[in-house]
């Protein structure tokens, strides 16, 4: 048994400690907002936060999450987190999503990035690109992702 703290709730999970967090979220707990894209930390679709830091849940074993706070897209965008709510709202306003499959991961990366900035600072275009380089969108929504992140950042100042 491993105890996981997910979105503020304790979950007792009976699984091999090497199981990636992604599959416990999706298959065991039915939290499907976090997506399976590549299984190898190459596309970012499965991005979650571990103590606020963006990590790829497809390649992070349960054993690495013990004692840490896991945050998923469901919690990050439910309005309780100021940065996540601003990012989600900007995504809606800019109509970023096409197929939408990668967007959970994009939003989680963007939220961790904006939360990491010094209060009141506005990211440059190249800082946004660098922060988001690990997240693939096959539909090619990058133009609107850039605009949404810049917009969310300005709303957080």
């Amino acid at each position, binding site marked *: 048994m491993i105890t996981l703290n997910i979105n503020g709730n304790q979950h007792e999970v009976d699984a*091999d400690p090497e*199981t*990636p967090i992604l*599959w416990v979220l*999706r*298959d*065991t707990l*039915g939290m*499907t*907002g*976090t*997506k*399976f*894209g*590549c*299984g*190898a930390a*190459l*596309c970012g*679709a499965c991005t979650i936060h571990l103590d606020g830091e963006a990590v790829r849940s497809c390649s992070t074993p349960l054993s690495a999450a013990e004692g840490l706070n896991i945050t*998923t*897209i*469901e919690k990050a*965008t*439910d309005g309780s987190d100021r940065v996540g709510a601003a990012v*989600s*709202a900007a*995504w*809606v306003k800019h*109509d*970023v*999503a*096409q*197929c*939408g*499959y*990668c*967007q*959970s991961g994009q*939003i989680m990366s963007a939220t961790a990035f904006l939360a990491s900035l010094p209060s009141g600072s506005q990211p440059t275009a190249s800082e*946004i*690109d*660098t922060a*988001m*380089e690990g*997240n*693939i*969108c*096959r*539909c*090619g*929504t*990058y*133009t*609107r*992702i*850039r605009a949404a992140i810049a917009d969310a950042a300005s709303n957080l100042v």
Partner: protein
Amino acid sequence: MLPNMDYSELPRALQHMLERGRSTSVQALPRRSFLKLTGTLGLAVGIFPHLAAAQSTDAGEAPIALKPTEQPSAFVQIAPNGEVMVTINRLEFGQGVQTALPMILAEELDADWNLVRSQLGTNDMAYVDPLFGMHLTGGSNTIKNSFTQYRELGARVRAMLLAAAADRWNVDVSALRTEAGVVLAPDGRKLGYGELSEAAMALPVPQKIALKDPKDFRIIGQPTQRLDAQAKSSGQQSFGIDFKLPGQLTAVVARPPVFGAKIASLDDSAARSVKGVKAVLRVPLDRGAEGVAVVADGYWQASQGRNALKVEWDTSAVEKVDSEKQLAQFREIANRPGPRQFDADMAPLEAAPLSLEAEFVFPYLAHAAMEPLNCTVRLSDDRAEIWMGSQSAGLDAGVAANVLGLKPEQVVVNVQTSGGGFGRRFSSSSDTAMEACQIAKAARAAGLNAPVRTLWSREDDMRGGYYRPTHLHRARIGFDKEGNVLAWDHTIVGQSILTGTVFEKFQVKDGIDAATTEGMRSPYPLPMRLTVHHPVANVPVLWWRSVGSTHTAFVMETLLDDIARATDQDPVAYRMKMFGNEHPRHRDALQLAVDKSGYGSRALAEGRAWGVAVHESFSSVVAYVVEASVVDGQPKLHRVTAGVHCNLAVNPRTVEAQVQGAAIMGLSTCLAGSEITLKDGVVEQGNFSEFTVARITDVPEFDVNIVPSADAPTGMGEPGLPPLAPAFANAISRLTGKPVRQMPFNLA
């Protein structure tokens, strides 16, 4: 994907194709399937009845019947609170039809847009493409083929609501009008659609209805937020991969390393002992192959089980394609005579004052949609239910029925929102559904009475075939000093996509596949001889977003630029001269891109060059004017200005998104590493570390401009892709002085 053809034979061809597998036919599901479907949604009130006559077999009482595609009950539900649920007859996989089709219907319904919702349909005959007569999301056809259909559906429902209000108030219907979900009487009385829906559903469905004058449109043509924007910005959107039934198990499959190969030996003892593994099953796979399915509680356990399998494969009976050898073979084939699509006189070639020769090589490409392929199957003795992102629900249901020994009407395919697809969710063999059904059937035979979701890993998906085929193009062109082409001798070598598919009969003529040659020559009045060879190879190939135009646009638009450059002409002026007074949509799209980009009037930054291309595909025209440079030996795209002609843009906001996205997918094909190659029969790329797709750092600035038009709309899912790569290449050629002849670009 499917240019001008007579589609009336298509349903029969589909049936014929399925019959080749087993003797069954595709039929409409019983009408009661709608009642069941809607009954589960909590929106039962407001179901409009199918016209009784349409279901009646009693010829004596039947007036003119509406087709299933014309019957409001299959498409519209209005809840008591006024919410309007519109059912989509396509797959939504990013292109935005689950917003655009409701916009079209809501326009004629005069609905309150804030109360409009949408959902995807099934393999019911109501949801066939009204022109094709089969279930199909492809060829950028949704808006083009269903524009009038969804307008008429909305108008029919509005007429029924008006009639219900006239009954209620005992007034003449002509005195009433509608406005944003409300029926209004001259004396100021009003009734919401939700209040009228139950009475309206008891009324007959009108056959003939008047449609709005397009100048009165208030929803169509407005930049409109997608109906799924909120769900897709909060992790709430459910995709096929997210669908879960109680007790559902997950299967992953060990597939042979070479397409079509079989199992030589299997030791599954270690796999069976992996915790959570329920069964290990030998199953028939696509293309006559054999594989091993590991069925477990979840994906991770199943993949751990798969890792523990000891399988030896027998590849002795199948061809092992090798990309390098294949290119040599294609070059040899290109020297042979072959069937000709165009056959202009090549005599002027030798005497032409100027000439050029070119050879182009295009690789296999994977669709690499972000949501890996998956399919969930629930079996009972006389019924199969399937949940999958399907571009061809009827074909998938037919293939499933063949596998399962059921009648087609015993199979329901519930179309699931998909994380991309780009053509891959309509394979000619329905491989995804076929394999998932084989596994579900084998699991049931092994005593596992549970629904089974078959899930592909990224590597399974990328190595699973059905690629954009590799092509070799060769051209010899003779022209004069004014750039007039005197003779153009062209050869294409590449596998046929449509041979062996439902479209073969219409689209493969005299040995030439129209999907290979679409986009060649047109719109330019060139004296061309086009020879086409379709070698057969053991690599499954498939349509891939914009299909033939993925390579023909590149060849045509770069060669025309070469001619313009060789004769010292401006590439825009040269194209306009070629268009003459013809092709007004090409002219308008190109001129708009030129005007908005500042081409010819604005100096570029040091080291940058302009590139231009224009191409029509799937009935829409897109022109790009781009700015590019070469940074550290690598091509870099900085800015793209688009001119788009899709006639009436139903949702301009989606058109912009589709152009940006298609252009970026086109950009991906230019980047180093964006190719699928084979070595000794084995695909060499398995994941995004080996197959490049564009990332945010590759992406230019965009400015998308739409030519205003009131003509009936054409589609935009694909047409933004083809002209991007040649516009980029033309800019690079102007910088380096060397033509770009290879995809992905290689400037070495």
